[in-house]
């Protein structure tokens, strides 16, 4: 697959609002919950479009988790949105006990993934949401890399039931997939023989850029969009590790607890190969534009290239 940076898809927030709208029209049990961030997520219009299927609970994320649990008890299908740090870090015990432990249903969407929180800065920047959510037994944890994928994952989470966490950016993502693509397994976007780059979210595009740069050096990289961090598609991962003998992960998240951890754990248990992880290490967030912050935290194609060069030396 050739990387295309064409921004011809809808914004991710628009995709969220449209998909919830579509599901709610078909199923009157669907209900969208917002905690005073409707206008940030393009869901304000749902209040008039979906009477009885949308509620702005105010700035109370802990209570929002409990409300969703209660709504699930009476048969509703809650979709919960706020910025990632509020729906995970802030309300974690509520999410863990009232939804997870109680075995209820909720699709939880955390927006402004990692550095894309931009000018909201360190208080609003989450590099640990995936790590937290991986610890919730039976929860599914996804990071969307593209609008078509995001829509698919929202529908899949709705259909599958249980607790799902979908991490996303709010603005436009790069265009990676066709409208009718299915996302039941990790997506192998490029097949190579020298190294495997595993990434999710905004780092998939960086991984494809890195693969282009590496090919100029004669290094042939496999690139996998591991949009489902839990459950992890171990089969696809091992197959690629066997074929290439070295792995680099790339994530807009802390390397501890996130995709890098998940991949390292799976490889260590099933097929150990040299591995390096690109991501945030022992740092909090800060203000800045996404491109600037990607450089600050080393979340870019050049860092991936450097780590690939290092990992190949260990083969």
């Amino acid at each position, binding site marked *: 697959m050739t990387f295309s940076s064409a921004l011809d898809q809808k914004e991710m927030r628009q995709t969220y609002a449209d998909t919830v709208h579509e599901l709610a029209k078909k199923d009157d049990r669907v*209900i969208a919950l917002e905690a005073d961030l409707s206008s940030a997520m393009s869901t304000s219009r749902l209040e008039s479009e979906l009477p*009885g299927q949308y*509620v702005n*609970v*105010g700035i*109370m994320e*802990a*209570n929002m*988790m*409990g*409300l*969703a*649990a*209660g*709504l*699930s*008890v*009476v*048969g*509703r299908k809650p979709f919960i949105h706020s910025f990632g740090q509020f729906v995970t870090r802030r309300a974690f*015990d*509520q999410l863990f*006990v*009232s939804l997870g*432990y*109680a*075995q209820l249903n909720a699709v939880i969407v955390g927006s402004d993934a990692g550095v894309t929180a931009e000018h909201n800065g360190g208080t609003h920047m989450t590099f640990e949401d995936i790590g937290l959510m991986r610890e919730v037994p039976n929860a599914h944890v996804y990071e969307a890399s593209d609008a078509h994928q995001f829509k698919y994952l929202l529908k899949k989470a709705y259909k599958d039931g249980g607790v799902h966490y979908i991490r996303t950016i709010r603005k436009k993502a790069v265009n990676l997939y066709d409208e009718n693509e299915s996302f039941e397994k990790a997506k192998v976007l490029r097949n190579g023989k020298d190294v495997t780059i595993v990434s999710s979210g905004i780092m998939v595009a960086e991984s494809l850029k890195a693969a282009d740069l590496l090919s100029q050096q004669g290094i042939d990289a496999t690139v996998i969009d591991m949009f489902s961090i839990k459950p992890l598609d171990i089969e696809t991962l091992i197959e690629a590790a066997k074929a290439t003998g070295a792995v680099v992960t790339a994530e807009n998240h802390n390397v501890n607890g996130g995709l890098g951890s998940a991949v390292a754990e799976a490889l260590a248990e099933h097929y150990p190969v040299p591995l390096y992880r690109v991501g945030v290490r022992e740092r909090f967030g800060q203000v800045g534009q996404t491109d600037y912050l990607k450089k600050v935290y080393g979340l870019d194609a050049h860092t991936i290239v450097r780590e690939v060069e290092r990992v190949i030396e260990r083969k």
Partner: protein
Amino acid sequence: MLATQTDLQFFANQIRYYTLKELKAIGFGHYGGSLSIVEVLAVLYGKHIHVEPDDAKNPDRDYFVLSKGHGGPALYATLFLKKFFSEETLYTLNQNGTTLPSHPDRNLTPGVEMTTGSLGQGISAATGIAFGNKLDGRTNYTYAIVGDGELNEGQCWEAFQFAAHHQLENLIVFIDDNKKQLDGLTIDIMNPFDFVEKMKAFGFAAELVDGANLEEIDAAVERAKKRTGKPTAIVLDTIKGQGVPYLEKKADNHHIRPTEVDMSAINSTLEELEKVLEGGQNQ
């Protein structure tokens, strides 16, 4: 449904008796906060909550959430008496592999609507249940009991704001004001001030009743059910360890592992209750 106050009194005695027997079987537990909610449970399950074991998933049933989850033993005694499970099961409280854990679990215990125990969370769920039922046009009620100590948790006040804003008249909240939390008196640890005034300020209809008086509790529930446009808070003036004179006087009575002296006093209450219950059954 139990029609008379005599019936409700008998039911309350049964709940207290089986709560004590259940706790005695494991040898330790949350005595104080279980005993202070016996009367309200008797009124609710004896008269107001329409739910039957053989129709427990009826969407029009009334819902009950014990937000102060450590009162679980009293709820289990009540659910046993409502025939949700056997007496044999009742005595497995907190035993390995039991279906009756210290704090209620909706996936383990028949009749338990919501998993609670992490304080502050049950009232949010109860509010969600009431909200969902109201949205769907149902006329059933959701009842919840929160502890006075539990109200230290900010989440409770988030839930109250939501309930009042959405005018959930189908939500009736009891505050078990037994004046104590785990480490001591609420007034020393975190002054609750005036619960009735606080709840009114949060948009509830609120009143204080004697939490040991079945008639008063019942009358307050009847008033709540006639109310429209706002949720109701019924503040129960209770005693931690209520109905067991020895435990009422015991300072540290949240979680007790009874000594021989404690057990002898608890056994005296059990014997008295047994006589009263036998007398009641013979009538």
